[in-house]
């Protein structure tokens, strides 16, 4: 299978998963295209550019600089500031905790080796408080092991680990952007899951994660605990449901490749149309949420054409589950006959179409009537004006 995935990817180094890609995958678990591309480690950003639909979500240099500065401040002096904050959240004095950075400086080390090192460090005996930065985690996903380069600190406290996440979105008056908190929570849940996997004991990792964010409009960090039990359940469920990559691969044509055929300078030379045709062989499930979560969102949108789901999560439900725009309109206008299983849906759509047409016509009628009335009034005014003019004359 690895050979098959490598062929699909072409002769380039695979991209590694991170918690964000896993969280996004669980956001749309039915998407085979994303599952295969992520499993193969395809550079989706380059691919999106290659097919002529570049992703539009880059991060602003200002946001990156701000995030890095905040994280550096929190982690400065062996995480002194972080430990002070954690004391406020967890109660005990943790200032004596040891800090270990598990990220080798060169960053090119073999992932298996780094993962083993992380395991050794984290499972080492000892119950005293300790902080481990940048452990390399592994998670089994769609029948394959994926490595995670998490940007997290694992805190050991009373023999249990807590996931600590440093984020640069603000908490204002105790409230933060709900979408950002949700994204952070699901990411943290991925880490909790992977950490539990690493340690082999689910009870060794707490379901309460610590989120560190700037407070109000300042740079002052504040720590809060977030219960991620719900996210853990969702994740475990979604990961279990993920279509196995093997079964998707089995249905793909042999020799399918998404190689960009980069030349010596790294410029892709493969024609966009050819690449798009290859990509089309892998089924996608586009929803509007993909635009902000997946690099290929714009490509899949252009491909989805007249799918009702592309118009919003609830549109398809509202229209009784009809899948395409044409079918919905055909049923509504009764130009196609509905089978027995579709009778109810056809009924609903015909009612909607009739009511919509009636209401529009009624409004047009009223507008005409008003215009007519106005016209009459004008005519009267004119007549009066003429009469007056005559009178004066």
């Amino acid at each position, binding site marked *: 299978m690895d050979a098959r995935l490598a062929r699909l990817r072409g002769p380039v180094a695979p991209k590694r998963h991170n918690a964000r890609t896993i969280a996004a995958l669980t956001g749309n678990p039915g998407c085979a295209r994303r599952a295969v591309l992520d499993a193969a480690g395809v550079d989706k950003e380059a691919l999106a550019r290659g097919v002529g639909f570049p992703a*539009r*979500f*880059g*991060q*602003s*240099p*200002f*946001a*990156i*600089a*701000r*995030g890095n500065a905040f994280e550096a401040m929190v982690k400065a002096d062996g995480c002194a500031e972080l430990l002070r904050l954690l004391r406020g959240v967890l109660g005990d004095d943790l200032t004596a905790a040891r800090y270990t950075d598990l990220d080798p400086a060169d960053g090119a080390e073999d992932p298996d080796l780094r993962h083993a090192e992380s395991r050794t460090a984290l499972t080492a005996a000892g119950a005293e408080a300790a902080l481990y930065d940048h452990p390399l985690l592994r998670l089994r996903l769609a029948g394959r092991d994926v490595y995670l380069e998490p940007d997290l600190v694992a805190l050991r406290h009373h023999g249990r680990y807590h996931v600590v996440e440093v984020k*640069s*979105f*603000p908490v*204002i*008056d*105790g*409230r933060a952007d709900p979408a950002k908190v949700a994204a952070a929570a699901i990411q943290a849940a991925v880490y909790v899951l992977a950490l539990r996997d690493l340690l082999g004991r689910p009870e060794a990792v707490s379901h309460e994660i610590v989120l560190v964010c*700037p407070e*109000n*409009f*300042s740079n002052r960090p504040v720590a809060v605990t977030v219960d991620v039990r719900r996210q853990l359940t969702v994740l475990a469920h979604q990961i279990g449901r993920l279509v196995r990559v093997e079964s998707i691969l089995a249905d793909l044509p042999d020799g399918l490749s998404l190689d960009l055929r980069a030349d010596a300078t790294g410029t892709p030379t493969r024609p966009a149309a050819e690449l798009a045709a290859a990509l089309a062989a892998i089924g996608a499930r586009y929803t*509007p*949420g993909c*635009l*902000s979560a997946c690099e290929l969102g714009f490509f899949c949108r252009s491909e989805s054409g*007249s799918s*009702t789901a*592309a*118009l*919003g999560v*609830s*549109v398809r439900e*509202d*229209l009784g589950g009809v899948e395409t*725009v*044409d079918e*919905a*309109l055909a049923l*509504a206008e009764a130009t196609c006959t509905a089978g027995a299983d579709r009778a109810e849906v056809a009924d*609903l*759509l015909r*009612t*909607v*179409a*009739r*009511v*919509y047409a*009636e*209401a*529009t016509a*009624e*409004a047009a009628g*009223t*507008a005409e009537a*008003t215009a007519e009335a106005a016209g009459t009034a004008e005519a009267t005014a004119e007549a009066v004006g003429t009469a007056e003019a005559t009178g004066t004359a």
Partner: protein
Amino acid sequence: MTAVVSFARVRAVKTGRAQPIATVRHVHLSPRPLVLVPLALAGEANAPLAAMVGTHPDDDRLLVVPQPRNRDLRFTFVADLADAVLPYVHSYCYDIEHVRGRDRFTGAPQVLVPNAAGVRFLALLGRSTRFRRTDGDYPVAPNVPLLGRWLTFLAERAETPGSAALLALTDALALHWASGQSPVEDQNLAAVLGWIDPPEGLSGADAARAAEDPSVWPPAGPTTDPGFDADVLVPAIRAYDRAVETAGPVAQRRARTAIEEVLRGQLEPTWRLMWRGLDLLRALPPGASVADRWAADRAAFTGFREHVVGGGPPQGRRDGAVASARRLNRLERQLDEYEAARAFDDPLVLAAHRVTGAAFAGTVVTVDRDRRVENANGTPVNRPLVTVATADPVHLGPGTEVVAVSRRNQTGTVQCVGSIVDKTHVTLELRGGMGRARVPPPGTVPDVGERLCYTSVLAGNVPAPPLPDTERTPWTHGGPPVPYEPPTEDGT
């Protein structure tokens, strides 16, 4: 979304043009609105970068912060913004009308921003400025906290269903047109306007796609395009910093002008879109209940102005338990009233209720005009029965109260619902609107053949639960709220 809106979206895809989902305008539009397009620095909690503000398309005022990380420059910007906004707000504080023993301003400010994110940005700007001190170690200009209070007022008003004091243009447009794209994509003002009013020779879908290119149509803010940040803004701000450190005032001014020019380029397309969208909305006739809702906005404006002039404190950081419960109750009631009023104003909004079976339109088939029954006191009263035949699906149980759109002063109570051939027959007992005569006067009871549209979506009575005074908040809800004392070093 309702089935009608979803159906309209499907039609929009097919026709390549946005489809109407309203036949009247449901929002009040001021003849002189204040259009405000804010931009913020990415990654920061609430660092303003620029704003374009004005009451006329040809009279825009551009405000920028040449170095958004500099606190003094930020507050200079806020003070400039206050100079643009506060005189506009105060210009409505002269003409007063007397209604039911209370004074009310005849006008009120209306602020328009491009999208919902713009509303959130103004709310945060209000929060970050209304507690600022004008004395002490880090004083700000006196109009800064005042602007903060007005922005907070507007942002809180924006949460009220049907309020038009602070509007996001994308939301206002989405209330009247369904585009052939998803609500997520509808947050892009240029794309929505592309669907509603595409340029000559272009379909709505193509215009919307073209509008997504940030190099042609810069995002309507408050966040800027990351590409613009990296390629244009970073070098421009760096040049300004260098000029401040090393060069004289002429070079500084030049660097500042350069930043102003690039930000003007980002803001101007949106500025023009704002006025174009406004013109599209103005072309619709206003709904019958719009004036009432604007009157509520004016009353709230009057009340808040009195609060400010009377030396009242700035709005709290958040509502206490009692205030929250009260506010929630009020919002529920207002939402109920708003939904009902909108359906009465607009047959296309009512259409959505007809699809779900909460309303129906049909023709009167039988009338029992002379029916009289004894009321609870034993007095005989007029209770005519009418039966309406409709093709709509009706999901109303006996006893449900309905009101006809064209006979608002009369209530019908559903007696029975049955189907005959392909029609549904609904029998209603009528009450009210018939005077006190023994026999209902002509015209007060519907005639056979009359077409009527009855709806059960009425402004119900949302009960107000008994709530204690604020200072008697029980300990289960945190006890009486403690007033917020802003830290003096806040904002360093």
